[in-house]
């Protein structure tokens, strides 16, 4: 079953077609990678799925339900969490505060009862704290930095805290926008392991945008290639790697001919 389906999505900014009739699916429990050259529309696609952009045409279905009209802040509550290309943690807050904010959408207590820290607010808070402790902080091995403020962290750790915050949202689908961009080899390997653990142990469906082909080919079950806002190929990593259109998009027509020649 496909937990997330994008059907014939089109989106343009002025005269520029960012997404042109894009259809793709994220199979339940799998890791789906969206790749493509710069400007291919990957981040636009993520922004449309998470509700920041309103597509002109097409449908986005989450668990079979069309969520095209659901505002972004409510999509979080449905189980759609994301990270951003540039780390977008709340500066001036501690790691723990940032992570707890991820659990925000799941809480029901209103501003007033939260003000007195009473009743339901207190109970929810306690439950959230225990859950975050177990399922996020221990899981991502960030216990030692919980009290630090974001500015004090190395870049790789900031990315991990952002992942932690997304996990605290108890997502069914996790959208990761370039999870290893700018990371060194060791940090990349750590992140790859965490993503695989999230998928295998938690059964969370992952969809990621990434330029690191090594990572994409290693961990994805399913790859979708975008170029100029259109899907030009999709399939297993091996199928996509062999596709002439993909080689052409990445290396140019000449290189593609050469590759065919050699093959």
């Amino acid at each position, binding site marked *: 079953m496909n937990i997330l389906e994008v059907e014939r999505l089109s989106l343009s900014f002025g005269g520029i077609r960012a997404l042109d009739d894009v259809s793709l699916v994220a199979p339940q429990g799998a890791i789906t990678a969206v790749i493509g050259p710069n400007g291919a529309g990957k981040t636009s696609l993520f922004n449309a799925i998470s509700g920041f952009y309103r597509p002109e045409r097409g449908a986005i279905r989450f668990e079979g339900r069309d969520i095209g009209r659901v505002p972004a*802040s409510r999509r979080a509550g449905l189980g759609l969490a994301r990270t951003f290309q540039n780390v*977008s943690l709340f500066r001036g807050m501690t790691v723990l505060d940032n992570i*707890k*904010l991820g659990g*925000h959408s799941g809480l029901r207590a209103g501003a007033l009862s939260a003000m007195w820290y009473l009743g339901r607010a207190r109970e929810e808070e306690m439950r959230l704290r225990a859950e975050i402790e177990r399922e996020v902080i221990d899981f991502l091995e960030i216990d030692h930095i919980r009290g630090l403020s974001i500015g004090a962290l190395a870049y790789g750790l900031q990315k991990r805290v952002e992942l932690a915050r997304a996990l605290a949202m108890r997502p069914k689908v996790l959208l990761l926008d370039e999870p290893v961009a700018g990371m060194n080899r060791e940090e990349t390997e750590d992140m790859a392991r965490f993503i695989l653990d999230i998928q295998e142990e938690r059964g969370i469906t992952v969809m990621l945008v990434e330029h690191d082909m090594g990572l994409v080919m290693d961990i994805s079950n399913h790859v979708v290639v975008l170029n100029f806002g259109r899907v030009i190929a999709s399939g297993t990593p091996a199928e996509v790697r062999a596709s002439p259109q993909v080689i052409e998009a990445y290396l140019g027509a000449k290189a593609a001919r050469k590759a065919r020649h050699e093959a």
Partner: protein
Amino acid sequence: MDFLTFLEFSVVGLAGGGLLALIALGFVLIYKGTRVVNFAMGEFMMMGAYLFYTTHVAWKLHWAPALALTLAGIAALGALVERTILRPLSGQPVISIVMATIGLGTILHGAADAIWGGDNLALPELLPRKPVFVGEILIPGQVLWSFAAACALIGAFLAYFRFSRTGVAMRAAASDPVTAYAMGIDVRRTSRLTWIFAGLTGAVAGIIVASMTSLSPALGNVALGVLAVIILGGLDSVLGAIVAGLAIGWLEAVTVGFIGGKARDLVPYVVVLVILMVRPYGLFGTREIERL
């Protein structure tokens, strides 16, 4: 002037600074949440004082229910302002929104004049006048109790932002609304709450000021003096608002003691000017902050 007198002026000044800090907090809340300097802050104070006058003096309610009604009214006003003025203007240049707050101030000023008239009205003295002696230092009762009230309110807000879930969400939405939105935080709601809270601080400050002096549509002008406080403290720093509020209160009092009442409005602002030459973003503000 001997040391004891200096101490006395200092204590009175610091206590008076508490009220400045409370008003400054109202400005800082809005600035942090929306990057806008709310020039209608003084009019929020004035409306709070007038609503209290109506409920307490005209309707003869006990002060507690009168205060509750006033705060409810101001909260409604804050929410209304956010919904009808700020939200439609979101995404517009900051200067347009600032102009809108100036216009709002004028409208509220005119409305108060039309409803309650331009004459000075008197609020009953809410705070005990009885002076308190600390050792040999005499502190006027009203100054001391207004300081206590301001401290209690500031403390409550700080605790709310630090510990409550909604408070943390408001901070998150203030620092990065897009990400907060993706986290499932309802940014419209946090923005509405910000205006409500700013209205509440303003109303309490306005009631205190009016009960110590008198009530007229010009009450809002008090807030203009507080602009120096928030610029000194840094527009986006709650701590800065508190420290600068106390500092300016102290400077004013000591100036009165040493130089005389006429210099009261001059010396503190010269000091602020000099400090701003060295630290243009204020004592605690974010470095790249825009200035007024």
